[in-house]
């Protein structure tokens, strides 16, 4: 949650540590707040916001705190302010379920509207929210070609050259001195990039999980792991399985 504290208490201009990488030759910056910024296109990418997750669970009888949407949006506000992007792409599973976007309280709707003002806002559809976002600014679509890359929610089975996707909530574990640390991460082999989940109540799936197999050239794969206020870049071979 240090990401949350950082986003809401530190000024957006304070020093932060990010990692630069390239996807299919396109320069990209992994921001420790959980988003990917493409400086040449002025585009910010976030994935798996899972907004209204708390209320989705409450509907099924589990009264999770109703604050997750607000917390996620606060971080989104911070990262949007930091990069001031012309385009924002939210890479699917923007809402935790189909009813999420329609049932979202008005205050949150206004926050999103304020953020989207003066920018292009793209909602990529995910498996949790295949019907698109309703009553919100921006366009909903299944995938988007933009800035020399292709953006979709679920990574394709193909070679994935230039693909930026989410869905799998990648995380990685390092082991040092017989101790291990597990964090959400950006994962890329230079051809394809998988985004970490942005929502504050989303869990992670280890890069070594079989759901990830075949997606990357593991020789080239680097996990850009999210620390408290910086990105830690670790080669796949140095991760713990």
């Amino acid at each position, binding site marked *: 949650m240090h990401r949350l504290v950082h986003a809401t208490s530190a000024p957006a201009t304070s020093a932060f540590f990010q990692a630069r990488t390239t996807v299919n030759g396109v320069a990209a910056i992994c921001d420790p707040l959980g988003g990917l910024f493409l400086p040449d296109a002025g585009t910010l990418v976030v994935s798996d916001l899972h907004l209204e997750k708390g209320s989705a669970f409450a509907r099924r009888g589990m009264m*999770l*705190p109703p*604050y997750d949407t607000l917390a996620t949006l606060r971080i989104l506000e911070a990262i949007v302010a930091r990069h001031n992007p012309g385009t924002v792409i939210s890479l699917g599973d923007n809402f935790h379920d189909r009813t999420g976007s329609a049932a979202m309280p008005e205050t949150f709707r206004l926050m999103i509207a304020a953020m989207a003002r003066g920018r292009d806002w793209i909602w990529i559809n995910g498996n949790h929210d295949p019907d698109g976002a309703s009553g919100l600014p921006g366009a909903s679509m299944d995938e988007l070609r933009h800035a020399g890359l292709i953006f979709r929610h679920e990574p394709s089975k193909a070679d994935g050259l230039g693909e930026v996707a989410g869905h799998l909530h990648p995380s990685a574990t390092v082991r040092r001195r017989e101790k291990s*640390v597990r964090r959400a991460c950006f994962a890329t082999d230079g051809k394809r990039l998988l985004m970490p989940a942005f929502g504050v*109540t989303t*869990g992670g799936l280890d890069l070594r999980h079989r759901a990830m197999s075949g997606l990357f050239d593991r020789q080239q794969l680097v996990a850009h792991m999210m*620390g408290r206020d910086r990105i*830690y870049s670790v*080669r796949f071979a140095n991760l*713990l399985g």
Partner: protein
Amino acid sequence: MISRESMLREEMASGFSFVPFDLPLFPVNRIDSPLPESDALTLPAPFLRWFAEKGWRPRAHQLELLSRAEAGQSTLLIAPTGAGKTLAGFLPSLVDVTRRGKLPPGSAFVGIHTLYISPLKALAVDIERNLLKPVNEMGLPVRIENRTGDTPQGKRQRQKLNPPDLLLTTPEQLALLIADGEAERFFKNLRYVVLDELHSLVTSKRGHLLALGLARLRRLAPGLKTIGLSATVAEPMELQRWLVGQFPDKESHAGLITVSGGAKPEISILRAESHVPWAGHSARYAIPDVYAAIKEHGTTLLFVNTRSQAEMLFQELWTINDDNLPIALHHGSLDVAQRRKVEAAMAENRLRAVVATSTLDLGIDWGDVDLVVHVGAPKGASRLAQRIGRANHRMDEPSRAILVPANRFEVMECQAALDANYIGAQDTPPVGKGALDVLAQHVLGMACAKPFDALQLYDEITTAAPYADLSWETFERVVDLVATGGYALRTYERYARIRKTKEGLWRVSNPMVAQQYRLNVGTIVESPMLNVRMVKRNARGSLGRGGISLGKVEEYFLEMLSPGDTFLFSGKVLRFEGIRENECLVSQAFSFDPKVPSYAGGKFPLSTYLAAQVRKMLADPLRRATLPDQVRDWLALQGDVSMLPREDELLIETFPRGSRHYMVTYAFEGRLAHQTLGMLLTRRLDRAGLKPLGFVATDYSLGVWALDDLGAAFRARAPSLAQLFDEDMLGDDLEAWLNESFLLKRTFRTCAVIAGLIDQRHPGKEKTGRQVTVSADLIYDVLRMHEPDHILLEATRNDAAAGLLDIGRLGTMLKRIKGHITHRRLDRISPLAVPVMLEIGREAVQGEAQDFLLTEAADDLINEAMGAGLHTDG
């Protein structure tokens, strides 16, 4: 002929301190012999016949308990193992049902007569076996059945329609039964509730749940009486109060019958020829001596503190088991079927030894055990007393036990425990204030049973001793928590799980809520566990499917493993192959030497009482002289190089080693309190600019290391040790640390699961432990940020302060050592410091240090000097 009255009079006169067990007061084997009038009045004929045939007679306390029960009194019976406690507890029920006789077919529904609650499933099953024997021999018209989590669904249904007279069950099953719509009918004629091993039932959240269940039973069956059976405890009055309903203006408690005595156990500490290690918990050095002891006895029970210790000991014993003695393994992670097999073999005396953890704890009858071996420190005198009691169920013969300390500090601890056993000191933890998460679970259960009136339920709940002080406001907040999560932001009204009807009663919103409740009942939240499955590699080297399941292992343990690592489990050396779905796949390893040592730390921290004894021993040359040579020499050397602290003195040593400076604090307050102290001290040292790098805590001492010379800083009073150890660390520092502590997250997860905020299991949707862990952590963070006063966070803080952090104990220690701190500045490590120094590197990593490790891992990458396209910025 001595009458029962005169016998009791004798007992009364001696304050129940001595009971003439098994005296041949009635040494007649003839059915027609005259009976003492009083017994004839008390016991129905089949009982008298049976006793007569056996040549036995009921013991005084058994008859006393019977007469008090028949006079309508609830009673606590405190007696050592082997005193016939169980028969005493059931006698009132057996007599009453026998008098009533068998119900004719077609009679109206009666419901159960007696409920027996035990802390362990195995104990309920065991008691049934032991009880059925005399009941059948006497030909009593009494139906006895057990009901546990393992009871098949069909049998449970049948039990509801056609209940037995005596139902033997666990606290979780009781919670389920009273949350049933038929509870009223089922329990309306309940006469007795027998609570076995009450001293261990009451002290946890499980005890809180049980207390609430009992409060409900009292309402369903107002005439009900309780019978508590307990080992010796420090505060019997707490248990006496617990047994009966509490009301604001009147002190009420159950009666007390105490049986003391029994032969003193013969306990010795193993004095091995070989070298006693400085640190660690494996006690490997003693294996040959332990094996020799097994050979010399009929049946031996070997107890250890943790699962991994059990695995290790089992493996080592088989390595040298040249005689192929039947030695078995029993611990909670093993497959149920496997455990049952071992239990059955044990009961039939087919085994020579069983290596066990606390799953075999408490009063299970294990056939003719003639030796108990306890490996590792016993951590608390009352646990020790329990375990020794197992050796022999006949009170007139002494039990035999051998303590095997795993390291040198444990030698002292064992000696202290041994002394404690002789003087009968007990340190059972207190009942504690009723937990709010447990209350939330109960409130939902009560709504599932039947719509409730809040005021009426509040009145019922406050009759339970742990909740006697519960305020109405807190109760309302708990009801709100159950209904909509209790959030200030009231967005979940439309999803409420329970709602207030027009008549003002709270009822469940839909049947799914009740289903969810049933799946989540209970207070034992398991740490995430994965099933361990044995697989084979096929010819092409890929893994097959569907081998046998060996049991469950903690997920945190697996996180330390890489494929190919070997480890011990289920008595085998296994090769870790990987994790598939929710299972840990392993194959047979062709090696006898597991690569990864499993965590072997003691789970149970040193009790306050034993800690005080160890401090006394260190300070007292006479008591030190009784210790084995190796340990005595070690302490003598410590005296020469540094010093041995006085009983009330806190010794702190500082010394350099490698490029670091160490500080070792000998507080003897148990691992939990030391861990908390370590967190707080490092914060303070950090503020003083001394660059602390880490700490490690054992039961006996705390080691902190730093880049700066700590000794020089203390000498220069910058800061002084008095400042550093001031009680005010329990103020702001504690608050600040708590707020970012991973310990609180773990505690929160437990509270959230118990309170029903997070499912342990969900209908049709099995979550893995990991998923629960992750979401609970994230939920905790979000909640703390947005609603720090939420009732579940309050419950979490209460739990952590009492349990994980042992703050009470730390506070007492800080008070005690004020003005008694002695600093020794040494130029190298002292003998006493070696054990804690050897532990460095074994502790799990926390908080800030996590990012430190990440930096190291990332630095590797930088050092690799990768090509373009990847560099760290900033």
